[in-house]
């Protein structure tokens, strides 16, 4: 069905009939504008320029960048192993040796907080991307084809949306049975992604519904361009701004959902370090060792704050109408 080569050929067909490339015109003096002036700034470039000026976005980006570095180099940065217990030094107060103290198994809290960033970021980012890669194509198909395809896809999406999200995420995690390590992380990612798919499908469907009526899409159709090419080359780029904003802010939400699932004991299981789990485990000892539950919570807060600030800045920069 799809024939990108043919479509490309159709697209690069020389334009004839009245239009000449302005840049090729000889430069003549006395015309009203410089024909060789730089082309107008693209919307993306404009957005990036606005983004650099936004303090919130820059602060958010710095927080996120630092966290990514911490997660990537956790092995190097963490002073001790996050899972090695030391029965001789349980509940140690913060000291030079253990800057954030140790937990009930004598594990170094600083190392656990550093390693915990991996789960939060990995689940936060990958669950949103997974939802994006499933939700966006479905939303595009629903919006573009309408009719029965639309009804079928949106019925399924509405079914997922009809659930209170935590109820669905919790039951999905019970079905997947939480485990430790990478597999456990993938299960949490999957559960959160399923809950988030309809958000993208709805968002994209709405944008596509208005974009498909535009003249340039009609022109493509008239030229005989195949549907997938129209969808990915002409429709998708025009609904990118809300997708990017939703994704950034969605990472913040997903990190909270992950932490909440871990807090309820349904996230990635120990010994894999996870902030939500650490917070839950240490709340039991909050009377005598208050700092233990403080640090994982602060880590979650700072991470979510970073993505929220960056997402807010992005929204203002990419789509001023949404402000």
């Amino acid at each position: 069905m799809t024939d990108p080569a043919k479509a490309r050929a159709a697209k690069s067909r020389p334009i004839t009939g009245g239009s000449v490339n302005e840049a090729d015109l000889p430069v003549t003096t006395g015309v009203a504008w410089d024909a060789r002036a730089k082309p107008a700034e693209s919307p993306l470039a404009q957005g990036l320029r606005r983004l650099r000026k936004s303090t919130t976005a820059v602060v958010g980006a710095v927080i996120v960048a630092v966290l990514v570095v911490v997660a990537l180099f956790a092995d190097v940065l963490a002073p001790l192993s996050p899972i090695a217990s030391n029965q001789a030094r349980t509940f140690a107060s913060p000291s030079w040796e253990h800057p954030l103290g140790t937990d009930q198994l004598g594990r170094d809290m600083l190392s656990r907080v550093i390693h915990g960033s991996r789960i939060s970021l990995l689940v936060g980012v990958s669950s949103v991307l997974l939802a994006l890669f499933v939700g966006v194509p479905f939303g595009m198909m629903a919006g573009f084809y309408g009719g029965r395809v639309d009804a079928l896809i949106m019925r399924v999406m509405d079914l997922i949306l009809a659930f209170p999200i935590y109820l669905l995420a919790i039951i999905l995690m019970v079905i997947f049975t939480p485990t430790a390590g990478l597999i456990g992380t993938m299960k949490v990612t999957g559960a959160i992604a399923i809950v988030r798919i309809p958000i993208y499908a709805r968002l994209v469907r709405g944008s596509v519904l208005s974009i498909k009526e535009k003249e340039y899409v009609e022109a493509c159709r008239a030229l005989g361009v195949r549907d997938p090419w129209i969808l990915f080359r002409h429709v998708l780029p025009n609904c990118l701004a809300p997708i990017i904003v939703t994704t950034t802010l969605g990472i913040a939400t997903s990190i909270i959902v992950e932490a909440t699932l871990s807090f309820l004991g349904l996230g990635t299981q120990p010994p894999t370090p996870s902030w939500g789990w650490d917070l839950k485990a240490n709340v039991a000892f909050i009377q005598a060792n208050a700092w233990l539950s403080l640090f994982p919570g602060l880590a979650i807060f700072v991470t979510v704050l970073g993505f929220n600030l960056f997402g807010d800045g992005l929204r203002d920069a990419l789509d001023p109408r949404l402000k």
Partner: protein
Amino acid sequence: MRTYILRRLIEIVPTVLMITFVVFVMMRSVPGDPVVSVLGDAYTEEDAIKAREEYGLNKPIVVQYGIWLGKLVRGDWGASILTGRPVLQDVLIRLPVTLELIVLSMAVALAIAIPAAIIGALRQNTWADYTATSAAMVGVSIPEFFIGVLLLLIFSIGLGGLLPSSGWVYLPGTCPSMVCGSSLWGNLQHVLLPAIALGVGRAAILTRLLRASMLEVIRTEYVTTARAKGLSERPIVFKHALKNALIPTVTVMGLQVGFLIGGAIVVETLFAMPGLGTFGIDAIIARDYQQVQGFALLTALAFVVMNLVVDLTYTFLDPRIRYT
């Protein structure tokens, strides 16, 4: 209007059926078997088969759902497989606890959000506005359980046990048994921290939204007209601007119900409250099918009824909105 409400009430039925059916199927695909938990470790395969027959767990899922539904319409919510207690009875004991928590947390949210949003919008780009927006940003970034932990640290541990850290004192009249004590003051002490923990996040979301829509509304012509005819600032803000600005906020408050249910689970777990949230999560983890069904039914009902209430609130806020 009446026909509209009637139609919406009828539409609730298929949605609730769908949610409860999906939960029914999902719970039965959970690895593990409640029968095993009932029988304990030492059981023979024969015992298990017999027990499954007794609870009707050997029948096809659709038939099981039909049986559950048939009993439900006759007012029988089934009995817990693990404890043998009727589900409806347990749910009714726990419902007031969660309702009180949610209503109070919404009150906390509105009490913070409405003044903060009005100040932020009327004094845009002043330090008051920056304080309100920054506080809201912090608020949306803290998960409920961490706010709860911070409140515990401050009020239960820091201030020498000013407020209790866990447990529950029932409101007079909701006490489920003879032995539990109930008092208004004790109840208030126990519900305050959880309600704030659950309310702060909502307050932050509402502040951001309400401030944005207030900013839009105060630039409209009817607000200029109201000012031009010499109306004082108070009726302009509360009667003209706030009421219209509340429309998108109410929509989001309705959508927040899904998050509130999750928040209630978390906050009730943290503060060890005997509410529906802890009931639901315990039932799901224990694979107590009947209890999970009861929880799902109630959650689904709360969810769809809230959406209806939201749609009806529009007509109060904006009389131009009419349903036929």
